[in-house]
Structure formats: C-alpha cells, structure tokens
C-alpha cells in the first residue's frame, strides 16, 4: 500500500454485489456445513425410498413408494396431503436449505463478521442479494444431490423408473427455480430474527414445511390460487408438470425474491445491525 490518497471511487452496483458474493462463496466452499447438507440431501431420499413402508387395508405391509420418481415429486399437485408419500419429496430440500441458511447467516452475526461487511458495504441490498444467491445456489446443489441419491437408492431397491421424462424434467427444473424464492424468504426471516438465532431456525423450519399452505389446502381445496405462494408452486412442480409449470415456478420465485429482498433491505436500513 502506498501513501493514502483521498480520492474515493464509488464501486458500481455489480462490483459491490460481486465482492459480497465472492466472500460468501469462499466461505461456503471452505466450511464443512455445506458439504454436510449436500450429503444429507443425498441420504434422505435413499432412506425414504429404502425404508418406508405402509400397511394396506388387508394388513399387508408394502413399500410406501412403488415408483422412484415419487420421491422427487408427487404425481399431481395436491396442496392438502393425505399421506406422507404425497408430502415427502424434493420439497424437503427447502427445509434443509432453510436450516443451513439460518446457520450461515447466524454465524455472520455470532462471529461479528457482519460488522466488517456493513462497515465496507454501505448499501444493505448487497447483503440481501448475496445471501439470497448463496441460499439459492446451495438449495439447487442439494436438489441435484437429492436427485442423485434418489436414482442410486431407486436402483438399489429396484423400484420402478417409469415416468414421463419431460414432466419429470419440468418438475425438477421447477423445484430448482423455487430455490431462489425460498432462499429470499429464509434470508428475510433471518434478518427479522437476527438477534435470536434459535427463532430464526425454528421460523425457517416452520415456513419451510409449508404447513400454512397445507392447512389452506385443507380448507379451500386444491385451488390453483395457492400457486402464488412458494409452497404452492413448489407442489405444483409435480410429475404431471409441463413448461407452464416451469414458467409458474419462475414467475412466483422471482416475484417473491423481489418482495422479500425489498422488505429485507428496508428492515436493515431502518434498524440497527445488532
């Protein structure tokens, strides 16, 4: 470093966000937590497919899933689930992602590193955007390891692989796109409860389960209106999906990301960091 100059060059929006992303990606790849969650995402479908069984009306115990891809998505968009087989699918990745993101952001505050970030980043939207991107990336990676885990376990238990490939692809792409929306929700929740790490995790888990939409589905039935919510469109990305499913997921995810990022930035700007 040479003698200090008092010429202050403002970084552009893209430079600012890139710097924040560089930090977050470096941290993500250098902490074991990310890899642990990737492994969890791979193991869970294997456990579900290999170990779940149900007793039918005749008292015969049979496998809960007869088709491998049911672990990825339900056959049809059922918002109100009647059994675990309709619920336990790739959407669970969004719960793991929420917990991971809570830990990731929680460590920012617990270690005090957030002070360094906010000292050099005057614009709070940098933080929201970067953390959302990290969360979305992590969940997208988890979706992929979940898919790998599903395929491998499907081969092991010799479950059926019969599927409409196009619909399956649309469902997977739709769910990966939903990662963005879910990440923005979790970042927002973590900003709201930034002083209370435990509440952050619990709130992410609570919203991640989609329990409110499941409840709404039970009350209003399988209304397509529920697709405007994150859990609704995540369920909509099912094995009977098509390109329209992908577009709905994209639109809903981007819209909620925008809303949560604006709200989160507002909260950060109007309140103390810690």
């Amino acid at each position, binding site marked *: *470093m*040479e*003698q*200090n*100059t*008092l010429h*202050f*060059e*403002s*970084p552009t929006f893209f*430079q*600012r966000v*890139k*710097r*924040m992303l*560089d*930090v977050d990606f*470096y*941290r993500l790849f*250098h*902490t074991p937590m990310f890899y642990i969650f990737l492994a969890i995402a791979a193991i869970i479908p294997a456990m579900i497919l290999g170990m779940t069984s149900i007793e039918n009306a005749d008292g015969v115990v049979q496998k809960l899933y007869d088709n491998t891809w049911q672990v990825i998505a339900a056959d049809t968009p059922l918002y109100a689930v009647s059994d675990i087989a309709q619920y336990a699918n790739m959407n669970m990745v969004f719960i793991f992602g929420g917990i991971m993101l809570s830990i990731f952001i929680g*460590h920012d505050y617990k*270690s*005090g*590193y*957030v*002070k*360094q*970030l*906010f*000292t*050099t*980043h*005057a*614009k709070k939207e940098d933080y929201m955007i970067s953390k959302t991107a990290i969360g979305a990336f992590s969940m997208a990676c988890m979706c992929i390891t979940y898919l790998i885990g599903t395929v491998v376990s499907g081969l092991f238990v010799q479950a059926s692989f019969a599927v409409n490939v196009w619909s399956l692809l649309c469902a997977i792409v739709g769910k990966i796109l939903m990662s963005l929306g879910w990440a923005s929700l979790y970042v927002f929740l973590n900003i709201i409860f930034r002083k209370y790490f435990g509440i952050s995790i619990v709130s992410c888990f609570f919203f991640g389960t989609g329990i409110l939409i499941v409840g709404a589905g039970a009350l209003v039935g399988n209304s397509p209106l529920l697709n405007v919510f994150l859990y609704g469109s995540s369920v909509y990305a099912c094995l009977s999906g098509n390109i329209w499913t992908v577009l709905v997921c994209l639109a809903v995810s981007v819209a909620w990301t925008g809303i949560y990022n604006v709200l989160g930035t507002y909260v950060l*700007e*109007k*309140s*103390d*960091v*810690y």
Partner: protein
Amino acid sequence: MNAIEIRGLSKSFRGMYALNGLNMTVPVGAIYGFIGENGSGKSTTEKLICGHLVPDCGQMKLFGKDYTDAGVRVRVGALIENAGCFPSSSVYQNLMMQALNLGLLNPDEEIERVLKIVRMEDSAQIKFKNCSLGMKQRIGIAMALLGDPALLILDEPINGLDTDGMRIMREILVDITQTYGCTVLISSHLLGELEKIATHYGIIRQGKMIAELSAKEMDARARVFVALKTADMQKAATLLKGKYPNVHEEEGELRVYDVDEVEEVVEYLLKNGQVVSQVRKNKVGLEEYYIQLMSQKESE
C-alpha cells in the same frame, strides 16, 4: 477537509439517549484519542460512523461526503469490540474473506503485507479460535488495514493486552499512520497509552462532546510542577507558599506549580533549613486534565 465531521448526532435505545447532539471533528491524518467513561457513548459513536447503528438525527460526514457514500465506506477499516472473525477458519481464511469483500486485486500479497505489519507472518494457518487475545486484536487490526483504508476506527484495541502487547500495538498504530497517512479514531480507557500516540483528543460525557483539543493544545495547557517531600512538610509548605503563588499539598507531597527549575526550589528550602528527601518534576497530563474536566462537569 476533515476525516470525520459530526454535527448534532443523537442515538437512543428504548428512550434512553446514548448520544445527545454530539459534535465531533477529526482532522485528516490525525490519531484521534476518543476518551470517556463507560457508557458515555464512545462505542455508539463508532458504530454509527461504521453504519452498524441507525442515528435518530444528526449529520455525519466522512472526508466531506455523507457517511453512507459507498466510495468512502469501502475505505473505512474498523475494529469494533472484537475482530469479527470466524473462529473455525484460519487467520489466512478470515483475511482472505475480508480481502474479497474489499475486491482487492492481489489478495495474497495484501494478506502477507498486513500480517507483516502486525508481526504475525508465521501465524496465517492458525485457526482464529486458537489465537491468544493479543493475537486476535492484532488480526483485527490486520483486517482493518487490508486494502487502502483512509480511516481506521479502533474501539479499545489495547484493552486486555499485556505490557508487551500494548507496546507492539502502539508501534503498529504509529507506524501505519506515519507510513500510510491514514486517519485513526481510537477509543481507550488507558489514557497513558493514548497520550503516547494521539495527536488530537475528544472527551465525551453522557453522549456529548465536552472537549476537543489537539496534543499541542494539551501540552500548552499542561502545568509543570515540582513535587517534593521533607521531614517537616508543614514548615516547608509555609516557606514555599511565601515564595511561590501555587503550592498545594496533594497525594502526600508538596506540589509547587508553574516552576521549571527543581534546583531553585530545593536550594531555597535548604537555605531555610529544610532537607528534601524526595523530589521530582512532573506535568499535569491527559489523565489529570480528564479527571479535572470530569469533576468540573459533575459539579455543574
């Protein structure tokens, strides 16, 4: 242009004012010693400058620009309360994250440079959680020094350090201001340590700045005195009061203020049959000035 210019800054927490119309001026290139009792508002001021807290009202300018200006803030290095490092990451990884955060082009070179400044070249691979308090403080300084900081804000960086740690920290601070010319705002309770490095002082009390002065002004205010002890203190006091206008009995010794020559005082007492057992020359420094100012404000 001033490095920091604050006018009418207020901040309250649940209705209690931590800062109440604070004014502050830190010239460019200064080592500004920020002094005050616990809870007087030092850390709150520093957190506000760094954008960690939202002010209730007031104006803050850094190098003539609003404190929210992204160009200025990227040139602020801070060590507030702790280094803000991830405990399970190594020193190098923590510094790398900060280097990426600042968008440095040669992060490895920069990390090497700052580790050299804080004398921790061989500690890069140690996990932060395994570092001693002194090392952690130095890593905090290294984090703040990365890039090209025009302003360093250091909250109690020498607290909790042993004598050697304090000396190293002092040398580092003087070195970086002299070599790189950055402005330093440093708060501390250790006035004796501050006095050795500060070029300016700001004294805060109950969220208000009660005095701001340069080290030169402090020197000009400083009163020199000769302190002595004799076998018969009362008689010596009577004799000295007859010759010198400012003689006081303080802390078990006689203090003759505004006198430069020790020999002159000793000789005068000897001539009058008083043998001096102890004598020293001293001056009223920052600590005494601070105590005087605080008691004066308390009585107001």
